[in-house]
């Protein structure tokens, strides 16, 4: 399989001034050369194939955004190599951006006061999308989501969900080889979330677009990604199929118990260390248990375990 993105031993350090307290301290800072180095990304090697949807996960401050900023050419890696569609992003930022689309966090990249359709037309001109391809893309959008209600609405008047939807559509408009989606479903209601997941899946299937998805919502991961990459404290700690990850935690079960006051209590049990029956019996002594459920460990729990250092 051909690769869309190749990263080899990529590191990124930030230099941060050691600040001193008080007025005298700030004057000292003016002339200070006292920097400390923070490694945001440490020796990450990664290959992402064409057409894949990758879940790029990690706790806050793990280095996800920094990696994506390097892939999009905004930041220069301190060391290592990155190739995106065969281009070194930092050296040829403009060329790189022809073939990528980015939806970054909660920040709309559309023209705030313009109706969506006018933003689309400007993007068409900026990316020099041929007329036919542009019209086909709009047709495809129509077949995947109901865009009529938002097409003529200025972005500033849109709801968060509509704005996110618009930003995703705008990111795919020039049919890029890769789209970076940074927390696309954050803050959205359940129905909007599923609408957006369907849209991403549909566009990936129709256009073969590679999608790099960072998220804290395991629902996104379950719905979209086969493979996940987990990064923590700047290091890649996992890179494989999501099912493979779950099998690591094969002996884990989620036990849910409904207590006499009708509340559900939930806990994860490692069956190789603890017996499920024993846990239930112990609980039974304190509370009356009205109902129990035993489930396979969820992706959410698996990721939580990994972040906590299991």
């Amino acid at each position, binding site marked *: 399989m051909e690769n869309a993105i190749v990263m080899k031993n990529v590191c990124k350090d930030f230099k941060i001034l050691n600040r001193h307290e008080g007025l005298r301290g700030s004057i000292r800072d003016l002339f200070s050369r006292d920097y400390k180095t923070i490694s945001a990304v440490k020796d990450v090697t990664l290959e992402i194939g064409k057409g894949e949807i990758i879940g790029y996960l990690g706790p806050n401050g793990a280095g996800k955004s920094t990696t994506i900023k390097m892939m999009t050419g*905004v*930041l220069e890696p301190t060391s290592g190599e990155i190739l995106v569609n065969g281009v070194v992003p930092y050296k040829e930022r403009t060329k790189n951006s022809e073939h990528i689309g980015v939806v970054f966090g909660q*920040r709309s990249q559309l023209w705030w*006061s*313009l109706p969506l359709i006018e933003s689309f037309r400007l993007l068409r001109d900026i990316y020099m999308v041929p007329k036919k391809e542009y019209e086909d893309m709009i047709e495809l959008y129509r077949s995947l989501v109901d865009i009529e209600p938002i097409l003529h609405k200025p972005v500033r008047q849109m709801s968060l969900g509509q704005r996110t939807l618009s930003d995703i559509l705008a990111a795919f408009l020039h049919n890029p080889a890769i789209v970076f989606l940074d927390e696309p479903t954050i803050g959205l209601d359940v129905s909007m979330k599923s609408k957006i997941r369907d849209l991403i899946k549909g566009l990936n299937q129709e256009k073969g677009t590679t999608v790099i998805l960072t998220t804290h919502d395991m629902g996104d991961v379950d719905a979209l990604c086969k493979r996940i990459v987990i990064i923590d404290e700047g290091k890649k700690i996992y890179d494989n199929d999501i099912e493979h990850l779950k099998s690591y935690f094969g002996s884990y079960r989620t036990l849910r118990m409904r207590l006499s006051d009708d509340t559900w209590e939930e806990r994860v049990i490692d069956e190789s260390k603890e017996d499920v029956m024993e846990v239930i019996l112990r609980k039974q002594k304190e509370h009356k248990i009205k109902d129990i459920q035993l489930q396979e460990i969820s992706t959410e729990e698996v990721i939580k375990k990994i972040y906590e250092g299991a």
Partner: protein
Amino acid sequence: MENVLTKQKHRRGFRFYASIYRKILVQDLKSKMSYRADFIISTIGMIMTNLSGFVTFLILFKNFPSINGWDYHHMLFLYGFSLLALTPVQCFFDNNWNLRFQVQSGDFIKYCFRPINVFFYFMSEVFDVKGLGQFAFGAGTLIYAWVNIGIPVTPLLILKLMLFLLTASLFMIAIMNAAAATCFWIVGSGYVMVIMFRFKDFAKYPSSIFHGVFRILFTFVIPIAFVAYYPSLAILESDSVPVLTWCAPALGVLFFYLSYKFWMLGVRKYDFTGS
């Protein structure tokens, strides 16, 4: 047009940028017009600002009939010239004032994801209509002074006027670019911008009234003297034009280029931490 654009893929030249700018401008004006109250208030504000500046000028001249050998009409010429020279920075580069907010909040990163020049993309987002009023005011003043001084109207002088107005405006744009770009390195860049913007008030006086350190400062360090004084001499004293006036066009281009490079250096060096 459509076909020309597709054939030239990856080559985005002057025509491409001009066409994109025009399209953004048209859309921007359309949406501005739809906020009528906003439009009317800012127009009134602009007229008041210009009028009060003009009244200050008149009061000054009631008390001092001439400043350093410059009489009323010559001063008026300089005043009109400076207003015209300050129009482009007001109209096309006003987004510099928002740069520090966008950089600090992290929103600035969006300008780095498109296959077009970051500086162009950033500046293209704001067109300040207030500058147009300033242009009208400046043009009126300049024409009035021109006629009263009795300068002949020849094609050569008109051409000179255009060239030196453009030159003068490049200096002011350069000053504001450089001042705004300091936000990539320091937190208190707002003060730098306000101070630089205040300096423009010195532009409407002949720089011969400044002495010693200030003259050198306003000529070579913060080139305010080039925003009106030196360029206007090309028309006011066309017999004995000083050397610095002739150097002005080249220096203007140089200053603008340096300020652009400084601005872009800030973009490249900035860490964009946090998300």
